[in-house]
């Protein structure tokens, strides 16, 4: 369902972020993306969410070449891809409820249907009792979970997460990973970018490893191998 076809991305000034990346993620698959910081993990996520466009090659979702889409179609692509950001990207002066409801409001949901979906999403991440709080009053882990609830509230078929456990303790990291697994089990494709190798080793999912913009490993990570 997600396919990178000889994708390269270089920035003005000659910095090459990605070099001829090829991979596929099937529907309902859960995949980790790892590598040192600067290896190109974020760039891959940005290409999928159309924040950046590839210099060469094609990024395809469901066999549709993203580079062929017009600027005005970008919002509709983003509605199909739920993204969880490392720095949460929440609206700090709106309540948790409003933050999670935002994608639904954008799609034109109102009233009971919207409230029902927001509550369901908040319930999944265990924050139903915090819906009237402002994000500032929440801990880092809770803010991360609000971000997850927002990403899944309109049930996207593809879920991207950028360092979702970046600054959380192992206990919380495991909880958040369980949330992702739960979504994966209902058929959502999940791509998690992380450099938490211990987590990857425990979870034993297919792992894409990047090094300086190249893909150096695609498959199960051998547990002992130092990166």
């Amino acid at each position, binding site marked *: 369902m997600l396919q990178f076809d000889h994708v390269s991305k270089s920035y003005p000034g000659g910095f090459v972020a990605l070099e001829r990346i090829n991979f596929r993620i099937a529907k309902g698959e859960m995949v980790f993306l790892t590598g040192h910081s600067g290896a190109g993990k974020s760039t891959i996520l940005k290409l999928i*969410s159309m*924040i950046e466009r590839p210099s060469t090659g094609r990024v395809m*979702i*469901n066999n*549709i070449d993203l580079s062929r*889409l017009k600027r*005005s*179609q970008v*919002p*509709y*692509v*983003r*509605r*199909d891809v739920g*993204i969880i*950001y490392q720095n949460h*990207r*929440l*609206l700090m002066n709106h309540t948790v409820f409003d933050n999670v409801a*935002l*994608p639904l409001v*954008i*799609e*034109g*949901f*109102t*009233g009971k*249907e919207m409230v029902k979906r927001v509550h369901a999403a908040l319930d999944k991440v265990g924050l139903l009792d915090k819906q009237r709080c402002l994000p500032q009053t929440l801990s880092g882990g809770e803010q991360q979970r609000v971000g997850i609830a*927002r990403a899944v509230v*309109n049930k996207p*078929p593809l879920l991207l997460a950028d360092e979702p456990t970046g600054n959380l303790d192992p206990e919380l990291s495991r909880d958040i990973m369980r949330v992702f697994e739960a979504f994966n089990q209902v058929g959502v494709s999940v791509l998690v970018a992380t450099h938490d190798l211990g987590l990857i080793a425990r979870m034993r999912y297919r792992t894409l490893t990047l090094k300086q913009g190249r893909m150096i490993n695609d498959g199960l990570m051998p547990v002992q191998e130092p990166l």
Partner: protein
Amino acid sequence: MSILFSGRASGAKANKINFIRRFVMFFVNHLRQALFSLGELWRTPGSSLMTMAVLGLSLTLPTTLHLLVKNVQQVSGGFAKAAEISLFIRDSATSQQVQGLKTILEGDPQIAAVRHISKDAAMQEFQQASGFGAALNYLTENPLPDVLVVLPLHTEPAAARALQQQLEKERIVEFAKLDLEWLQRLDAVVLLLQQAVVAIGLLLLSAVLLIVSNTIRLSIISKREEIEVMKLVGATDAFIQRPFLYTGFWFGVFGGLLAFLVTEVLLWWLRGAIAGISDLYQSDFRLQAMSLQEFGGLILLAVLLGVIGSYLSVRRHLRAIEPS
């Protein structure tokens, strides 16, 4: 609508919310957004009030000038009778001849009315009005002529002048006098005023556009992060720009109302002075206030300016903000 996943149910439409409900919700949503924008203005009263005040005061000047022109036109409309032709009768004519001419003229289809001012009546009026009073009693005979005052049916300058020339040929008429020039001058001055109003109005309106668009620009910049987040979760430009357009709308509504209030206060202020002047001129002139239509026009204009100013800014600056 999902571009990537053709089978994917997405959005309110795909979730089978029926048409009528969606139609109603469209308006409810807009109302909600309008009220939300109003709330935003309420939360930042300082800058909002400034913008509304600038808009309102800028609109006050053209509005007041417009009312001024309207009132002057009303006054000059009352001067239609100024196209009267005065026929000064020769001394040699008898009063029978004068009456005869008056009857003939009254039958003329080009003439609306004829009034006879006899020598004696003219003398009396002159004595009362001129202030010479008793001094005139020393005159041995009345030097004033009989006068027939003719009001033409067509008071336009050209028609009135033709009639004047025709009447001057009457045998007992010494000469005919038509006082048109000052009326033409007044018309020219009114026209000049009108054009000045249009020019000043246009200048002020463009200033208002720039001010609104700059205020909205600042508001967009201050919400940069929020806009990025909205774009990231799939908001279209139309969705993001709507609150800003409503902000412009409210600027217009309140600016227009302010302009109306200030103009009313100005009129009230001037009313006393104008009553004094019109008393001196023994005229029953009353200052005309704004009509309901004009009030509606003012508010509509203000709202248009607010929305267009906001749109100009939104179109330029929303595109520039992209998440990174």
